C-alpha cells in the first residue's frame, strides 16, 4: 500500500518529537475527512492500517473514531480484511481501569460479529474470531450468573468447548480454541460445576493427541485440576507417557524437533504440569509404582543427557531449561538423599560458571530443592551442604547482575536454620551497607524475619535489630516496618523493656559522642523507647541525660523523626514535671508552632495545649498489641512463592457470595457421580464372591478377583474390550478418572493404593490392580466409587461403579466347639450392654434356599460352621474379623422355622460394638439379592 508506506517514511523522516506529532495530527485530520466521505475496500484498509500504526507509536489518544469503518471491515468475509478489522478492535478497545466496563465494551461491539464468525463455514474466519477471543479476554474478572452479557458469554464458552472436543475439527482450530476456552473458564469457573466437561477435556493431554494440542492443553488442565484436585491422579499416566516418548524414547514427529531436541517446550510444559500436580496435592500425591518408576527414569535420563556435548546456544538453552525443570521436581519423586546431594553439588559447581543465566537458574533450582524437601532432616542436610559453601554463595552477592543478587539472598534466606542463623545474620548485616539500593529494603526485612524466627535469646534479638536499624541508609522511609515491628515485639514483652532501653540509650550516646551519622530509623525507635520506658532506667540514666540525648539529635534528623521526638518530649513532661528541662521543651513546642511542616506544627500545638491547660494526665501508656501478626512477612519477597510454585487456588476459583460461604474457607465441593446403570449386580456379587463379573455392557466387560490376607485385600480388575469382537474398535484414552473412597479422610477406616493402571489403549484386555488395607471398622456407607472414562470410535464413555469395601471381606474361619460357641454367645451380651454386640434381622427371600446353600455361602464368606441342623434350618457359624487396629470374634446364627427356606432369622453377635449390625446388613443384602 503506497499511501501507508509513504506515511511511515514521512514519520521516519521527522527530526524530533514535535515534527512527528505534527505529521500525525495532519494525518489524523486527513483520515477523519476521508472517513466522512465514503470509502472503498482498499481505502478503508489503508486508513485503518494507518490508525493502527499511529497507535503503535503511542498516539492513540488522538483517535476516537473509526468504529463504523472497522465494523464494515469486519463484515467483509475476506481473511486479510477481517484480520485487520479485529486487530484494529483490539487496539481500540482498551481497559480504562474498569474491568467490567471493558468486558461490556467488547461484548457490546463484537458479540454478534464473533458469533457469526465462529459459525462461519470458512475455517480461516473461525480462526480469526477465536484468536480475538483468546487474546482480548484475559483479565481478572469473574462473570456471575445474571450479570450483564453473561448469556452471551456462556454462548461463547460453549461454542469454544464444542470446537475443542469435536472429533472433526482441524488441529489448527482446536489448538487455538483450547487457549480461548482456558481464558474464558478463568472468567467463569462456575461453568465446570454446571457441566460435566472435565473428563473429556482431560483427554486432550493423552498420548494419542497431536503435540500442539497437548502443548496447549497443559495450561487448561492445570486450571481444571486446580479447581477439581480429585482429577489430579487421572492425568499422571498421560503426562508420564508423553514424557517417556520425548525423553526416554527421545523421539517426536519430525516437525517438532528443535535443534536436535524433541519438542523442548512441550517437555517443559509437561514437567511444569507435573510439578503443579505435586504442589497442589501438598506432596501427598499417590502415584502407582509403574508410573513412579517411569518418572524417576525420566528425571535420571534428563540429568544424564545434560552431560552430552552441546551444539550451539539454542541447543544449550533448551537442554538446560529441561535439566533445571527436571531437577526441581526430583524432590517429589522420593529421590534418595544421595541423589539429592549429588544434584546439589552439581548445582553448586554451576554457581561459578561464566554464563550468567546458568548461575541465575542454578540458584533458582537450589531454592526449590531446599524449600520443597518434605522432611526437615533432609532439608537440613541440604541446607548444611549449601552452608558449607557459604563463601561461594556470599561471593554471588557481589555479582554484577542484580537478578543474581536477589536470588542469592533468597537462597541464603532459605538455608538459614537453628544451627547457622547467627553467622548468616552477621554476614548479612556486614553486607548491608554495600548492598544495592533496590535490594536494601528486601535484605533488611529478610534479616529481621530471620532474627525473629530463630532467636533463642531475646537480648540477642534486640541487639541485632538495633545494629540493623542503626546502619544509615538513604531510603529509610521504606523500612519503617522494621522498627515498627521491634516496637510491637517490645511492647508485648515486659522483660525486654528495661534492658532494651539501656541498650538503646548507650548506643545513642556512643554515636553522638563519636560524632557518627545517626539513622532516622534508630532515632524513631529511640524516641519511642525513651518516651515509653525511659522512667524504668532513671537510676542508670538521669532524666536530664535522656532528654539531652534526644534534644541533641533533634536538629540532625528528618521531619518525621522530629515529630516523633516531640511526642517523646510530651511524655517526658508527663513523667518528670519538675525537671529543669521542662522549660526547654515548652520553648521548643512554642518554636515549632511556626514550623512549615504540618505534622510538626500540629503536634507542637496540641502538646502545648495539653501542657498549658493542665491536661497531661490524658496521656496513657500504650496498651499491648492484640495482633501479633508480623507484617514483615508480606514484604519478604518471592522466596516462599517460588518454593510453592505460586499455586493460588483462590485466584482461580469463583468468588462465592458471602451467604453461601460465611467463613470463606476453601472447601472444594465434592464431586458426585451418578452411578452407571446396572452397577448393583457387580456390587453385590463382589460382596458374595471373590471373583466374577463386576460390570458388563456392549463395549466393555470388567471382571474382578479379590485375594485376602487378613486385613489386606487385593483387587485385580480385568478390563476386556467387548466392542472389538463386534466392530473391531479399540478402547482409547482409557483413564481411571477418579477413585473416591467415601471414608473419613482424617482417620480413614481403610487405605487404598493403586499398583498398576490399565493401558490407555485397550485392544483386547488390560488390568487394574489395587490394594486395600482395612484399618478399623468400615461402615456400610463407606464404599469406594471408581470412575472410568474411555473412547470407542468417536464416542466418549464414562462408568461410575461402586466397589464394596466391606468388613466381611476380612472374615476368617475359626474352629469352635459347640459348647465354646454357646459360652461366647452368652458372654457377648454381658460384655457389650444395650445389645450393641448383637443384631437380629428377619428377612424374606424370593428364592428358596436349603441348608447346604447357606452353609456354602457362610463358608465362602469366611465363617467356619459350628452346627447344622438339617430338619428345618439352623446353622451356626463362627469367624474372626481382622482389622489392622483390632480383631473381633463374630458369631452367626441363621434359622428358618416358618416357610422354611424363604423366611429367615439372622442373628449376628460380635465382640466389637456396632460391628454386628454391619455384618448382619451385609448378609441380609446377599440374601435379598440371591446367591
Amino acid at each position: 500500500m503506497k499511501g501507508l508506506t509513504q506515511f511511515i517514511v514521512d514519520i521516519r523522516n521527522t527530526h524530533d518529537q514535535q515534527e512527528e506529532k505534527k505529521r500525525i495530527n495532519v494525518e489524523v485530520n486527513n483520515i477523519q475527512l476521508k472517513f466522512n466521505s465514503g470509502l472503498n475496500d482498499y481505502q478503508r484498509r489503508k486508513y485503518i492500517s494507518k490508525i493502527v500504526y499511529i497507535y503503535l507509536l503511542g498516539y492513540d489518544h488522538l483517535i476516537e473514531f473509526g468504529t463504523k469503518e472497522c465494523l464494515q471491515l469486519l463484515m467483509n468475509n475476506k481473511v486479510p480484511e477481517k484480520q485487520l478489522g479485529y486487530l484494529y478492535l483490539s487496539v481500540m478497545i482498551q481497559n480504562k481501569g474498569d474491568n467490567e466496563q471493558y468486558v461490556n465494551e467488547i461484548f457490546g461491539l463484537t458479540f454478534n460479529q464473533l458469533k457469526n464468525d465462529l459459525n462461519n463455514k470458512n475455517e480461516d474466519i473461525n480462526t480469526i474470531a477465536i484468536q480475538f477471543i483468546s487474546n482480548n479476554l484475559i483479565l481478572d474478572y469473574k462473570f456471575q450468573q445474571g450479570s450483564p452479557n453473561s448469556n452471551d458469554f456462556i454462548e461463547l464458552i460453549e461454542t469454544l468447548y464444542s470446537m475443542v472436543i469435536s472429533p472433526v475439527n482441524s488441529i489448527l482450530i482446536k489448538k487455538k480454541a483450547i487457549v480461548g476456552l482456558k481464558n474464558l473458564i478463568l472468567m467463569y469457573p462456575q461453568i465446570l460445576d454446571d457441566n460435566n466437561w472435565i473428563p473429556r477435556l482431560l483427554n486432550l493431554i493423552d498420548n494419542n493427541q497431536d503435540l500442539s494440542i497437548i502443548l496447549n492443553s497443559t495450561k487448561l488442565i492445570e486450571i481444571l485440576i486446580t479447581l477439581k484436585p480429585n482429577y489430579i491422579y487421572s492425568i499422571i499416566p498421560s503426562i508420564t507417557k508423553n514424557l517417556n516418548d520425548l525423553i526416554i524414547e527421545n523421539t517426536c514427529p519430525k516437525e517438532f524437533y528443535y535443534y536436535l531436541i524433541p519438542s523442548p517446550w512441550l517437555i517443559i510444559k509437561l514437567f511444569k504440569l507435573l510439578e503443579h500436580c505435586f504442589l497442589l496435592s501438598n506432596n501427598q500425591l499417590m502415584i502407582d509404582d509403574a508410573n513412579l518408576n517411569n518418572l524417576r527414569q525420566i528425571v535420571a535420563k534428563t540429568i544424564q543427557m545434560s552431560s552430552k556435548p552441546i551444539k550451539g546456544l539454542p541447543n544449550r538453552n533448551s537442554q538446560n531449561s529441561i535439566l533445571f525443570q527436571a531437577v526441581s521436581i526430583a524432590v517429589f519423586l522420593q529421590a534418595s538423599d544421595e541423589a539429592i546431594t549429588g544434584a546439589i553439588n552439581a548445582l553448586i559447581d554451576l554457581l561459578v560458571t561464566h554464563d550468567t543465566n546458568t548461575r541465575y537458574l542454578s540458584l533458582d533450582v537450589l531454592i526449590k530443592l531446599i524449600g520443597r524437601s518434605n522432611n526437615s532432616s533432609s532439608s537440613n542436610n541440604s541446607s548444611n551442604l549449601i552452608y558449607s559453601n557459604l563463601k561461594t554463595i556470599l561471593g554471588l552477592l557481589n555479582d554484577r547482575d542484580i537478578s543474581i543478587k536477589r536470588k542469592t539472598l533468597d537462597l541464603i534466606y532459605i538455608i538459614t536454620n537453628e544451627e547457622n542463623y547467627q553467622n548468616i545474620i552477621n554476614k548479612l548485616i556486614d553486607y548491608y551497607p554495600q548492598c544495592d539500593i533496590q535490594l536494601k529494603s528486601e535484605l533488611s526485612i529478610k534479616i529481621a524475619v530471620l532474627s525473629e524466627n530463630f532467636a533463642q535469646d531475646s537480648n540477642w534479638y534486640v541487639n541485632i535489630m538495633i545494629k540493623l536499624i542503626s546502619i544509615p541508609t538513604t531510603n529509610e522511609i521504606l523500612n519503617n516496618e522494621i522498627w515498627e515491628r521491634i516496637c510491637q515485639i517490645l511492647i508485648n514483652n515486659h522483660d525486654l523493656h528495661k534492658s532494651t532501653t539501656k541498650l538503646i540509650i548507650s548506643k545513642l550516646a556512643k554515636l553522638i559522642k563519636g560524632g557518627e551519622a545517626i539513622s532516622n530509623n534508630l532515632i524513631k525507635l529511640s524516641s519511642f523507647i525513651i518516651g515509653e520506658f525511659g522512667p524504668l532506667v532513671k537510676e542508670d540514666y538521669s532524666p536530664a541525660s535522656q532528654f539531652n540525648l534526644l534534644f541533641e539529635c533533634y536538629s540532625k534528623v528528618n521531619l518525621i523523626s522530629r515529630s516523633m521526638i516531640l511526642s517523646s518530649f510530651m511524655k517526658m513532661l508527663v513523667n518528670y514535671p519538675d525537671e529543669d528541662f521542662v522549660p526547654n521543651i515548652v520553648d521548643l513546642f512554642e518554636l515549632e508552632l511556626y514550623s512549615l511542616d504540618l505534622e510538626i506544627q500540629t503536634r507542637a500545638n496540641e502538646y502545648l495545649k495539653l501542657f498549658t491547660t493542665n491536661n497531661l494526665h490524658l496521656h496513657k501508656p500504650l496498651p499491648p498489641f492484640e495482633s501479633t501478626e508480623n507484617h514483615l512477612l508480606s514484604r519478604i519477597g518471592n522466596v516462599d512463592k517460588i518454593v510453592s510454585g505460586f499455586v493460588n487456588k483462590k485466584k482461580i476459583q469463583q468468588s462465592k457470595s458471602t451467604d453461601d460461604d460465611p467463613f470463606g474457607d476453601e472447601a472444594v465441593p465434592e464431586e458426585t457421580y451418578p452411578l452407571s446403570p446396572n452397577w448393583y449386580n457387580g456390587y453385590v456379587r463382589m460382596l458374595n464372591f471373590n471373583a466374577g463379573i463386576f460390570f458388563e455392557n456392549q463395549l466393555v466387560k470388567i471382571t474382578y478377583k479379590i485375594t485376602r490376607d487378613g486385613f489386606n485385600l487385593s483387587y485385580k480388575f480385568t478390563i476386556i474390550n467387548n466392542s472389538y469382537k463386534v466392530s473391531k474398535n479399540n478402547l482409547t484414552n482409557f483413564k481411571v478418572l477418579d477413585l473416591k473412597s467415601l471414608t473419613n479422610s482424617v482417620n480413614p477406616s481403610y487405605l487404598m493404593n493403586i499398583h498398576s493402571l490399565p493401558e490407555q489403549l485397550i485392544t483386547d484386555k488390560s488390568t487394574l490392580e489395587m490394594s486395600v488395607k482395612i484399618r478399623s471398622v468400615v461402615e456400610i456407607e463407606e464404599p469406594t466409587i471408581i470412575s472410568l472414562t474411555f473412547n470407542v470410535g468417536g464416542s466418549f464413555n464414562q462408568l461410575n461403579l461402586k466397589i464394596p469395601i466391606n468388613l466381611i471381606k476380612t472374615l476368617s474361619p475359626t474352629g469352635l466347639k459347640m459348647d465354646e460357641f454357646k459360652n461366647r454367645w452368652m458372654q457377648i451380651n454381658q460384655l457389650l450392654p444395650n445389645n450393641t454386640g448383637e443384631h437380629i434381622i428377619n428377612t424374606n427371600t424370593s428364592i428358596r434356599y436349603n441348608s447346604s446353600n447357606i452353609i456354602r455361602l457362610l463358608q465362602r464368606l469366611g465363617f467356619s460352621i459350628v452346627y447344622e441342623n438339617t430338619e428345618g434350618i439352623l446353622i451356626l457359624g463362627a469367624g474372626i474379623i481382622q482389622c489392622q487396629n483390632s480383631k473381633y470374634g463374630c458369631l452367626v446364627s441363621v434359622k428358618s422355622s416358618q416357610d422354611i427356606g424363604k423366611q429367615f432369622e439372622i442373628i449376628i453377635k460380635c465382640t466389637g460394638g456396632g460391628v454386628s449390625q454391619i455384618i448382619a446388613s451385609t448378609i441380609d443384602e446377599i440374601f435379598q439379592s440371591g446367591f
Partner: protein
Amino acid sequence: MSIHYILILNRQGKTRLNKWFNKNQTRSEQLKSIGEIHRIVSSRDSKYQSNFIEYQQTKLVYRRYAGLYFIMAIDLNDSELSYLESLHFFVEVLDTYFDNVIELDLVFNFSKIYNIVDEIFLGGEINEISKSRVLSRLTYLDSLDVN
C-alpha cells in the same frame, strides 16, 4: 496467562511490536511500563548480566538481536530459559519469513507482524512450536491476500 506481553523495542526505545495479553492493565500503564522497561533493559550489560530481571510481579526475559530488544514478561514461576528460547524461535520464524529480517521489515509490515505473533503466541501462551507449521500457515495466509 504465562506471557503477559511481548515487546520489540529498538535501542532508542521506539516500539516495533506491542502485544499486550494482560488486559488488566490500562493503556497508560502499558506506555509507562514500556518506557521503564526500555530503561532497564538497555542499561543492562549483555556480557555480565543475565537475560532475566524481575519487574512488577513478572519476570522480563529478553534478548538483543542487532538493534532490537525482544522482550517478554512471563509469570514468576515460569521457566525463563524456555521462554527465552521461544523468543529465539520467533526471531527465526521472522528471519525465514522475511529472508534475513531487518528492523525496517518490522516497520513496514507492522500489521503482518501481529499476524505472525498470532500463529506462535496466543492468549498469553505459546501456541505453536513447529516452525514448519507456522511457516506454511503464513504462506497460506499470504496466498489469501490478493491486494
